[in-house]
């Protein structure tokens, strides 16, 4: 057992951070809201050049041959930086196409030329589609199998209101006629998806903890930094514990999936639940720590809160995972 971050992994994180800082700083994320997509497009082609979409895909499939844990480190940064774009669907879609035997499609996706959205069935019988706008393909995933279908199969598309202005969602009717399919027992795409959602949420929990700590050190009231007041300090301490817990569990989930450990399902469900709770509590509390500024559009806190809510049902909501937690063997 080895739980230390390797030099290679540190290098991945550093490089992702550099790219995001340069190409997608918060001004550009906000720019995307005003319809300026230049940042998003530039980042997208950089991500393809850097092999992000095939980070954990074996080299013989055209990927970089790293592990799920390395993808989790990447997605944690995407969560931290509130990066918009169909990263999750595209990375998983490339995997499904490659493993499902559709090399040409896999190549197009890996090159960033064919973004992939994620379709989630709704009770009403139609589908909720995440990142629908520019998608060439759609991914549909459940605990038994994951399929890839052309985005053109979506009919009656309607843009849905989204609490998170940075993620575009549509409703649509779908005819499911997959051209690539991977059984969960062959390659656990669904478990990987859950883990990567947990990674994004963990990144959010860390970012909001850091925002709070920075503010608590600098903002002064009553002649002292507000971080000296225990009501604020203890709030920050709790944020720190939640983020550390989510991060440790993320590691266990990612490693147990790629190692095929017998308790992987439990580890993943735990990671998803703990990370969701951490992201939700931390983003809520960071608003409080920021005072009046916390409820302004200008403060980034609300974006984290909204992103957390937007991720609620992606790859199984907390309710599904809770059910799993009551049955999975440890």
């Amino acid at each position, binding site marked *: *057992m*080895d*739980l*230390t*971050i*390797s030099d290679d*992994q540190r290098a991945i994180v550093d490089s992702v951070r550099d790219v995001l800082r340069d190409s997608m700083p918060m001004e550009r994320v906000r720019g995307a809201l005003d319809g300026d997509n230049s940042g998003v497009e530039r980042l997208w082609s950089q991500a393809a050049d850097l092999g992000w979409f095939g980070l954990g895909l074996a080299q013989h499939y055209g990927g970089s041959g790293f592990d799920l*844990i390395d993808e989790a480190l990447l997605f944690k940064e995407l969560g931290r930086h509130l990066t918009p774009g169909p990263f999750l669907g595209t990375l998983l879609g490339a995997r499904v196409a490659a493993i499902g035997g559709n090399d040409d499609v896999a190549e197009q996706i890996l090159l960033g030329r064919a973004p992939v959205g994620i379709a989630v069935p709704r009770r009403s019988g139609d589908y909720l589609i995440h990142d629908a706008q520019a998608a060439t393909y759609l991914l549909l995933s459940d605990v038994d199998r994951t399929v890839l279908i052309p985005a053109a199969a979506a009919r009656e598309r309607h843009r849905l209101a989204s609490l998170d202005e940075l993620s575009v969602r549509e409703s649509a009717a779908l005819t499911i006629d997959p051209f690539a399919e991977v059984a969960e027992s062959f390659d656990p795409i669904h478990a990987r998806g859950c883990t990567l959602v947990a990674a994004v949420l963990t990144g959010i929990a860390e970012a909001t*903890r850091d925002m709070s*700590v920075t503010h*608590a*050190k600098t903002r002064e009231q009553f002649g*002292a*930094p507000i*971080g*000296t007041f*225990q009501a604020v*300090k*203890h709030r*920050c*301490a*709790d944020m*720190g*514990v939640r983020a*550390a*817990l*989510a991060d*440790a*569990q993320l*590691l*266990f989930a990612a*490693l*147990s999936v790629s*190692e095929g*450990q017998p308790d992987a399902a*439990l*580890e993943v*469900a*735990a*990671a998803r*639940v*703990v990370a969701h*709770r951490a992201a939700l509590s931390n983003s809520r509390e960071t608003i409080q720590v920021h005072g009046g500024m916390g409820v302004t559009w200008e403060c980034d806190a609300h974006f984290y809160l909204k992103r957390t809510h937007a991720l609620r049902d992606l790859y199984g909501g907390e309710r599904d*995972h*809770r*059910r799993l*937690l*009551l049955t999975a063997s*440890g």
Partner: protein
Amino acid sequence: MDLSLSQQDLDFRANAREWLRENFPKQSRPNDGPAMREFDLAWQRRQWDAGWAGVSWPAEYQGRGLPLLQQLIWFEECARAGEPDIDSRFVGLNHAGPTLIANGTPEQKAFHLPKILAGELVWCQGFSEPGSGSDLASLRTSGVIDGDDLVVNGHKIWTSFADLASYQELLVRTDPSAAKHRGLTWVICDMSLPGITIRPIKTLDGLSHFCEVFYDDVRIPLANVVGQLDDGWRVAMSTLSFERGTAFTAGQVQLTAVVERLLEVTHERPGPAGQDRAIDDEEIAGQLATLRAEVTALRALTYTHVLRSAGQSQPGPEGSMVKLFYTELRQRVMRLALEVIGPGSGERGLTAASWDEDYLASYSDTIAGGTSEIQRNIIGERVLGLPR
């Protein structure tokens, strides 16, 4: 990074499990007094005789000298076997032992460490005083040098198992003129010395696990000072970070076992609103699922903390995160257990204690070893870097 155990670790686990199957005490553990001490020490002695004591203690001090990971595996296997609480062995194995290893003289180590590992005696911790709990450094029990002795006068309180202990790690003020954190000394106190009076205190569960201890001109040889005179704060802090870091591993494993037991119980028993099974109660099911996620994550946090601090001589302040989360989680788990089993059932839980007793005992967790509020201060200031 990987989670898989090496062949050596797997062999170690298999051997541990097999040995525990044969040797784990069959009788149930008395929950108080000298009978409990005898039970605990006999169990420790059995481990020592078979070479299982002090898995990660250095071999030069009669430990096995094995990696921390195998220590964790040992704790896990003990808990899986249903090990009674480490309780009366806690201070010796998790405080005094590690502190002596880090700070003791060769003579102190040679005399005390084997006795701790071999289960010859119980240790206790004399830090807290009536006027000095969270503000430990304000303590006033005095130690005055007289010839080759330190003459101690004062009053300690909340001293767990003082009435069962042979030795005590005692913190006294040796330089009253120095600043609060200076001028303290950590000394080994023989509990049979003249001038010591011990008065047990009854706790909310009706037991008496801690005591008041009065010192009236107690003469302790200066040779018993650990570290330097007036350097006791540093020595004490190395002990406390052990307590907050690795020392709760066994308890955490037990907590996971409790949650898994509750999962079984809720499938076997009726729910509070007359459901066939308690698990069909939405509130119980929801809480149990969250708790299972949390104990799973606690294990990940503990492993990450322990393995990453393996190279350091003492665990860092991150141990406070483990302590804080573990103790508050344990209270949530025991609260749900009481809800599911029903209060006052008197029914035996996983150990010899009843669910009621375990529930009541969980109230101590967030106070003993530094309250949750103090842990939050430490996390805020020393982990996150917030101003004091």
